[in-house]
């Protein structure tokens, strides 16, 4: 059944479908067609922004699975992305082809994430947040000081990804690769959330005691959440490393973790679509701000000297404002906008 006044499901299978209406499918298809041909009409700089967005989508969607859906606050996601970046870097430098190295890097990151997820057995809320903060700082320290592997503060130079002899050496080629991985990650998380595991995650987030009393093995599912989330973080890190071709420990500092948390909060906690919105928003925010700053520099000549401080401040301000005024994020705004059009003459 479908109609303007709402959806009525008669079976569970129908309700848990990813797409409820043909309209959703066709508008998504149109969106993808536009996205796929858009790089030909954009400058190489704009395509590079799209690449960054794709990579951010993978990171945000993975963190949202862990923090938004399973309720395990992680302040260490940036460092996990770093683990993926360094792992795939080391593996490809030792001669492994890109694709297996990337997958293996994801696996390594999953292991690291699960090790730091073990405290989640005993800790929750603020204590877990501080434990993952410790993971963040310790991992960055390791990147910095394990110089024989990571190159330390000097960093590590990498090659462009090569898959079956095809070299992804331009922004345009890279766009299709990152887009493919971003789509795969989104589909994966969307599907994880529809399975038994996904429902267990949500149950654990909502109230761990009742989850346990209906037979959910808390430790198993929490570790699973850490594992899946870190695996995807590792993939994001690997792509990032081979896209920028140069990684240093500073890129994976706590600010990265915070910006990923900001993505999922501004997008909407626990929402896959929200993660995508958040990734787009946070990636484009500095660009929009620098655009504004450029145009204001005619009126305020000194604006560029304050730009860095202002950018961080506006980022923090937006985060605070979202938390106070729209805690459910952009995903909720999107829903409201959709239902406005659906219900148009009858607002209530």
């Amino acid at each position, binding site marked *: 059944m479908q109609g303007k006044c709402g959806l009525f499901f008669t079976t569970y299978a129908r309700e848990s479908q990813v797409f409820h209406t043909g309209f959703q499918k066709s508008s998504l298809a149109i969106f993808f067609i536009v996205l796929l041909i858009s790089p030909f009409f954009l400058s190489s700089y704009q395509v590079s922004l799209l690449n960054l967005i794709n990579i951010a989508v993978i990171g945000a969607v993975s963190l949202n699975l862990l*923090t938004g859906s399973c309720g395990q*606050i992680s302040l260490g996601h940036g460092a996990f992305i770093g683990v993926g970046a360094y792992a795939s870097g080391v593996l490809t430098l030792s001669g492994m082809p890109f694709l297996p190295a990337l997958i293996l890097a994801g696996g390594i990151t999953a292991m690291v994430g699960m090790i730091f997820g073990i*405290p*989640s*057995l*005993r*800790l*929750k*809320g*603020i*204590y877990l*947040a*501080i*434990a993952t*903060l*410790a*993971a963040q*700082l*310790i991992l960055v*320290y390791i990147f*910095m*000081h394990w110089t024989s592997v990571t190159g330390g503060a000097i960093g590590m130079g990498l090659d462009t990804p090569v898959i079956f002899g095809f070299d992804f050496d331009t922004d345009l080629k890279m766009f299709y690769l990152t887009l493919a991985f971003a789509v795969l990650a989104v589909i994966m998380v969307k599907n994880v959330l529809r399975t038994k595991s996904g429902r267990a995650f949500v149950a654990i987030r909502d109230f*761990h005691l009742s989850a346990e009393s209906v037979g959910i093995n*808390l430790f198993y599912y929490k570790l699973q959440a850490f594992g899946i989330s870190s695996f995807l973080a590792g993939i994001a890190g690997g792509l990032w490393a081979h896209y920028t071709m140069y990684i240093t420990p500073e890129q994976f500092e*706590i600010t990265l973790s*915070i910006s990923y*948390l*900001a993505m999922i*909060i501004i997008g909407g*906690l626990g929402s896959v679509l929200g993660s995508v919105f958040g990734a787009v928003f946070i990636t484009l925010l500095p660009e929009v701000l620098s655009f504004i700053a450029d145009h204001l520099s005619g009126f305020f000549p000194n604006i560029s000297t*304050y730009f*860095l*401080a*202002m950018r*961080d*401040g*506006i*980022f*923090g*301000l937006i*985060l*605070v404002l979202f*938390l*106070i005024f729209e*805690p459910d994020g952009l995903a909720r705004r999107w829903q409201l906008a959709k239902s406005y059009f659906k219900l148009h003459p009858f607002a209530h």
Partner: protein
Amino acid sequence: MEYYLHLVLNGLVIGSIYSLVALGFVIIYKATKVVNFAQGELVMFGAYVCFALTVQLGLPFLISFFMTLIFSVILGLCLERVILRPMIGEPIISVIMVTVGLSTVLKAVIQLFWGTSIRVYPQVLPTEPVWILGLPVAPVYIAAFCLSVVLFVIFSFFFKYSTMGIAMRATAFDQQAAQSMGIGVKNIFAMSWCIAAVVSSIGGIILGNINGINPQLGHLGLKVFPAVILGGLDSLLGAAIGGLIIGILENVSDGLAQQLFGLAGFREVAAYVVLVIILMIRPYGLFGTHEIERV
């Protein structure tokens, strides 16, 4: 041997500043159950305001010290009213993230006004070292340590005997019961943010006198987490002792790592390695209330 004694002494001084910042952290947590990730930025705020008053406006140090405290009170009141009060009853991740956002905003504001370069305080105390146990110690270190001890004593008495202090403890213990006995819980929240801002400012001023100040000072806030977790999130005594222990441990392990393994900068993570161990063994810390739910 002398080398280690020196490490311990330095650790004690840095630790006493950690204790002060941890004190602010614990007061906020005790009264409002909010974990404040912007504690380091409160330290920075105090340090920069005092710097501006003494150096840029040329006021005498003591006057600007007290004026800084007044500014901190105003800052604490504003933050609580504008940012923290709407967050009452929100999930823990929102509360954490709002203080994280707050910390970036505060940091940006400070950088807008004072830039990113290192600023140095004028010499307030004599530079001639005092000899303790055969080691030279700068008077500013001794002053820092004494000032923290005095503040801790004052606050212990405040919480034990003053009406406000008792009201704050009551609120921490049970908000509803306190409210039904006629305690203004909102005032208590505001009060706790004021106190936290004031003690952090004092910590910042001391630090500024020792090392000078720069926008990286906010990192100090991160050092406070191991200290409060070690001491117990809701224990004043714990904050004091936790701060001192983390200070000493950081300095000594840094020295050891440098001497034995040639590992530089272990100071940055030593506290966090300890933190992970504490969280695994005794999450409620040395003196904290054992109320954490076992999951």
